[in-house]
């Protein structure tokens, strides 16, 4: 474990769906300010892990700690308000709401404090400007292209007043290179400016190499490797599991 105190931890986190063990005693420790990648083949349990951490699913055993405080049993909105925010693989933007309202919605988490909200609206305008969506501020979000929706959803997370740790579930899937770059830059910027922690689930190895110093490999519900992407890529067992070969 490295020097900085972990902001997000899981201890022996397990989730069973019927006879299928989706997460098997996951011990994960993520330092404040880190950008951590999580990779693994389809069905490895990556989304389950995120759902367990954000209260969408309840674990069968184990614990999730945000800055030392257990999150198990908390409701999704309580966890979001505590600063552990997520994005979804399938975009959860509010289609009939304007772009601006989509970015104002997370300000609801700030319990009626006028200043936070006024500041937040200014930030929403800055983010839209930053992402080249300013002229669409009042248009309904359903008019956006797929890539623009991804940007909007990611931006909405940055609007959470208490945000400390941001979990992004496959943010780059099916996104064109220009938008991918915009999103990467946004993550790097917010990371630098606010010292935010990120956990990014992705299959895009080039992006992971660029963003994450450390990557965790999840296979069949278990952590099988942790380290830099280059270290991991050289491990025979990881390659074998990724390619679906049995150990020879």
């Amino acid at each position, binding site marked *: 474990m490295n020097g900085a105190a972990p902001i997000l931890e899981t201890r022996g986190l397990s989730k069973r769906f019927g006879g299928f063990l989706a997460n098997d005693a996951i011990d994960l420790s993520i330092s404040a300010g880190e950008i951590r990648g999580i990779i693994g083949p389809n069905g490895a349990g990556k989304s389950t892990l995120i759902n367990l951490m954000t209260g969408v699913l309840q674990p069968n055993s184990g614990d999730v700690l945000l800055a030392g405080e257990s999150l198990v049993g908390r409701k999704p909105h309580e966890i979001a308000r505590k600063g552990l925010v997520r994005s979804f693989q399938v975009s959860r*933007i509010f289609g009939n709401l304007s772009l601006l309202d989509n970015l104002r919605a997370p300000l609801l988490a700030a319990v009626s404090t006028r200043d936070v909200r006024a500041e937040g609206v200014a930030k929403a305008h800055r983010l839209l400007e930053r992402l080249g969506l300013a002229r669409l501020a009042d248009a309904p979000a359903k008019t956006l292209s797929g890539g623009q929706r991804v940007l909007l959803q990611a931006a909405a997370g940055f609007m959470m007043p208490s945000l400390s740790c941001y979990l992004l579930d496959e943010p780059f899937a099916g996104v064109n290179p220009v938008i991918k770059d915009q999103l990467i830059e946004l993550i790097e910027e917010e990371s630098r400016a606010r010292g935010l922690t990120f956990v990014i689930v992705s299959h895009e190895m080039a992006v992971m190499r660029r963003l994450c110093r450390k990557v965790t490999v999840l296979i069949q519900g278990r952590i099988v490797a942790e380290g830099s992407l280059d270290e991991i890529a050289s491990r025979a067992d990881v390659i074998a599991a990724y390619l679906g070969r049995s150990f020879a």
Partner: protein
Amino acid sequence: MWSLELFTQALIAGVVIGVIYALMALGITFIYSIVKMINWSMGEFYMLGSYAQYLIVAYWLGPDLWYVAAILSAATVFFVGWLIEPILIKPMFTGGIERRDDYATVVTIALLLLLRNLATAISGPYQRTPGSNLPGVMLGPLPESGARFAAFLAALAAIALFTFLLKRTWLGLALRATSQSRVGAQTAGVDVLSLDKIAFGIGVGLAGLAGALLAPVFMVYPTDGVVTTTKGFEIIVIGGLGSVPGALIAGVALGVAESLGATFIASAYQNAYGFVLLLLVLALRPSGLFGERLRQA
């Protein structure tokens, strides 16, 4: 017997009653949008509103303060809904129930029977009226009763207030976001289960307000909500489930269709003309005028 004056009269009468029916439709569609359920006991919340209005006007404030009574009646019904929601409706989301639509249907129909029979047991089957001393008015060529015109104006004011709440306040933003995606709203830190209580309260409160406003126009009795509720459901099918402008426009359309039909075809079939309109809309646009087709996820 066609004449422009008769047509104008029927048109105005239709708009007046249509806006009041729209209040009921708004309540149904609003609860559906947020809580994702059809509340089959809306007519009984209308009935509660009408009895509240009757009691407050007849025994306390008198007919001059009908508008204060209407606000108090609507607030009472809001409060009843706010209390009932966590007991009856919330288990739909927290009780591990798989067939939520079926659950909501059974629970709200049970509530309908309970409230209707309680009203009969307590007040008897008698028809009562809070009375009104508002003078009649001329709406262009149409002489209209004061109570009906007052109900029309109050319904317009309530719809304006409702729209303001939805479009201009933070609570409204939370409600609109939740209606789009409950999961998305939770991710944004919105406590959707507490919001359900408020939304259910507002929805039945709108029905209660319709009941209070129409109490002096129609009579007050245990099943007095049936007709207005039927219209409310017709309106949301015509306008599209979940659409606020749809409820308004379809409400007026239904009122006008019934009024014109009654004037120029035969008044005995007044309630049938709305259904003709409904069938036409279903044939031409099955999702309603403003409805969105549900995407199969």
